[in-house]
């Protein structure tokens, strides 16, 4: 096939390959059809269609059908903590091709509060976002943001930073707030322990998270329109993770998140827990790796079999003038760009790179907040494009090649490759030369 024709037919080919994978006559696929049916029979408002699976790694490309629209995975989900994405309008976000973004239950539950959002027809209505939303349980923020929080079997107790009132976030309360927010995907309340903690507390948290999952499932008032994901816990202990996986996968939940990671643990431990989790998660359900968003982590964890990711980093770092590029990042505010008349990334097609130079953005940072918005747009475009390229390479059966090219561009030399990434990729049969 000639390259030019190939690029013209890319989307068509894409579709055909999907058909091939789905109709392929191996027993695995037939089995998958069966379990898909089973999943559909309980009428969860979600379906997952596997479009392609990498023949070398554990990566997969899927269409995740959610109540508001379809989502192409692997997917990066930008975080709109307080019902807005850092100075970007919902039209701009849609224009960048974002199909799903996050809202934070803790923040929104505090301000403007679940009752008001319910009156505004949920978070979709309140922020006027027409595509999908995922909300977290609020537990993580509570434990990380509120100093005086206490976890009991009942839930997480904390003092409101706004009025000092004592509040209990129970599994029921978290789901009730998320029901008011009306997100397409809700997260169970889990007992969050820092990933660097070891010992009996980790085991207690794992068992409690399972009990809380059952309470969350029972509390969901909208099982027909809101999906509830379980969160796999167990710290960095493989036996505990495995026990948690066994218990939770026995529940008929529409999807699973891998939790309790990316909290400062060693990367060697991190990837081993991720790959252990995907090894035991059902093939026909989506897998969401929480809090992961650095480009290298994304590419590696897709290879390990994860479908969904979120992280505040790309939007947070944008506000400090840090633009994400295929070779790492570019600090627009640094002096060296004051007279650099190229776009941030000459190959980037985002609205910022199509119009503005590094030098203009550098100067604009001194005059107006719009400079931040420009970088935020670029960074979201970067994350979404990265995932689109990853997906396309999976569909076209060249994901391992994609990884090698990606790593070469990201690091100046082979000895710069992080060893954990090299090991993780080797575990899924990708060797980096």
């Amino acid at each position, binding site marked *: 096939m000639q390259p030019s024709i190939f690029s013209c037919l890319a989307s068509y080919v894409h579709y055909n390959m999907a058909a091939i994978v789905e109709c392929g006559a191996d027993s695995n696929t037939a089995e998958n059809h069966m379990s898909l049916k089973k999943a559909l029979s309980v009428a969860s408002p979600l379906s997952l269609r596997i479009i392609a699976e990498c023949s070398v790694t554990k990566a997969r490309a899927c269409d995740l059908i959610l109540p508001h629209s379809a989502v192409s995975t692997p997917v990066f989900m930008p975080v709109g903590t307080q019902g807005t994405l850092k*100075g970007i309008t919902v039209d*701009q976000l849609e224009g960048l091709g974002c199909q799903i973004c996050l809202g934070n239950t803790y*923040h929104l539950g505090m301000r403007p509060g679940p009752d*008001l959002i319910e009156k*505004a027809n949920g978070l979709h209505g309140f922020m006027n976002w027409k595509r999908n939303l995922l909300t977290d349980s609020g537990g993580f923020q509570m434990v990380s943001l509120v100093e005086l929080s206490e976890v009991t079997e009942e839930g997480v107790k904390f003092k409101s930073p706004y009025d000092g009132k004592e509040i209990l976030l129970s599994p029921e309360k978290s789901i009730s707030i998320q029901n008011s927010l009306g997100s397409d995907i809700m997260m169970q309340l889990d007992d969050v322990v820092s990933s660097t903690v070891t010992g009996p507390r980790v085991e207690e948290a794992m068992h409690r998270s399972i009990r809380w999952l059952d309470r969350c499932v029972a509390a969901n008032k909208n099982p027909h329109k809101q999906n509830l994901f379980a969160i796999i816990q167990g710290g960095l202990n493989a036996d505990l993770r495995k026990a948690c996986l066994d218990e939770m996968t026995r529940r008929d939940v529409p999807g699973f998140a891998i939790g309790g990671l990316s909290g400062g643990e060693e990367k060697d431990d991190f990837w081993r827990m991720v790959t252990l989790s995907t090894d035991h998660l059902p093939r026909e359900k989506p897998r969401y790796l929480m809090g992961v968003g650095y480009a290298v982590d994304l590419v590696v964890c897709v290879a390990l079999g994860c479908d969904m990711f979120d992280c505040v980093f790309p939007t947070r770092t944008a506000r400090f003038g840090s633009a994400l590029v295929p070779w790492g990042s570019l600090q627009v505010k640094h002096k060296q760009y004051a007279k650099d008349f190229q776009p941030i990334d000459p190959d980037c097609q985002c609205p910022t790179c199509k119009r503005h*130079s590094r*030098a*203009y953005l550098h100067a604009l940072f*001194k005059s107006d907040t719009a400079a931040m*918005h420009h970088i935020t747009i670029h960074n979201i475009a970067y994350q979404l494009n990265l995932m689109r390229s990853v997906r396309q390479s999976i569909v076209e059966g060249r994901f391992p090649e994609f990884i090698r090219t990606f790593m070469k561009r990201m690091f100046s030399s082979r000895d710069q490759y992080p060893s954990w990434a090299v090991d993780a990729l080797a575990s899924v049969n990708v060797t980096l030369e």
Partner: protein
Amino acid sequence: MAGSRIKLELSRVVQGKSRLGVLKGLGRTGQHSLEVPGCLLYTHFGTVPHLTQDTLHTLSNLSSVTQVTLAEHQEVLEEFKDGFKKFAGLHDTVLYCSLHDPAAPCPPGYTTNKTVSVWGSGGRIELTVAKFMALQKTVRPDWYQSMADGETWQSNTSRKRVRKSVDRTLAHLDECLLVHQNSQELQGVEVFGVVEGGDILEERVRSARETAKRPVAGFCLDGLQTGSMDQALRTQLIAAMTKELPEDKPRLLQGVGRPDEVLACAEAGVDLFESFFPFQVTERGCALCFNFDISPDPERAGRAPPAGVVNTGETQPNGDVTLDDQTQMTSFEINLKDKRYQDDFRPLVGGCGCYCCQNHQRAYLHHLLVTNELLAGVLLMIHNTAHYNGFFSALREAIANDKLDLLKRRVLGERGGQTERKE
């Protein structure tokens, strides 16, 4: 400067003063035009505050003239060589370069016989005519204001100081014009002369008369900004100056943006205004909501007026016009941080066609403001710019159809008249 290309075609002059027309022949190739009375597009370094190209272009009827103030960044522009428009990615606009940012404070006490000082992000920059003209050559605007000593706006400025400012400003203009005429780079670029004179009528007249003798394309009326004097005096001074100015050249008033003052000044013969006012309203978390509907359409009149608010105590008038701090709220806006908007699911202004009003509600804006979210500035800037542009269209319509009095009643609020109930 053989014959400026800018042509003001007046279609109507009411009572010898308020003028309706089109400013034609703008831009290097003369293809742009601007209706008057009209306003310029206020920017920070070529960017409308908070807005990117996507969000800016949700606005229709944007002014064709972009105002910038740039004394800093000369170095990078020199290196870039192709002028500011290209540097800032401004493709299809007329660029006007002013000396000061009308929304930024300009501390007095730094002007000398040969220099004026402007303020950038890095502090004070002292400009001589040579430096000022070198800057224009690197910026390469379509039109710029000549260097001027406008330090007469404080009350108690002595007659002597006012006279000196007029003399200096004329001397600066002559020097600027001399450099201009000998600069290849500035061919086809227009110069506006600056009229000074503080609050002294004779000095205003002298400044206008002398400036009008020079080959300028238009006039900036300086030293009359909000806070420097009351409107009655401002009106009187403007009327005296415009009498001395040629009919066919535009008059740009600096530092005045409040709707009531704009109305009075347009009535006195001003053609162009800067649009920093919507920006100031945005920065204090407020939304413009004053009524300017003069449409005879009974259907429209029967509905809620386009301004969702007609003086119901929803806005907070703050007393006397002249003494206001520029950052203080005016009676033309609502403060969305106010708790009363937390569960108000109406658009900022009913019937407003802007992106913000078409897509979002007051409750959401309230939430964005109390949580300090950046989107608040973006959405408010869109609405406030749209509302302000709408007001200028109404002003032109009013002059065209003899409805200035009606418009004034609408804008200033028919106190005790039509009221709007909450909920």
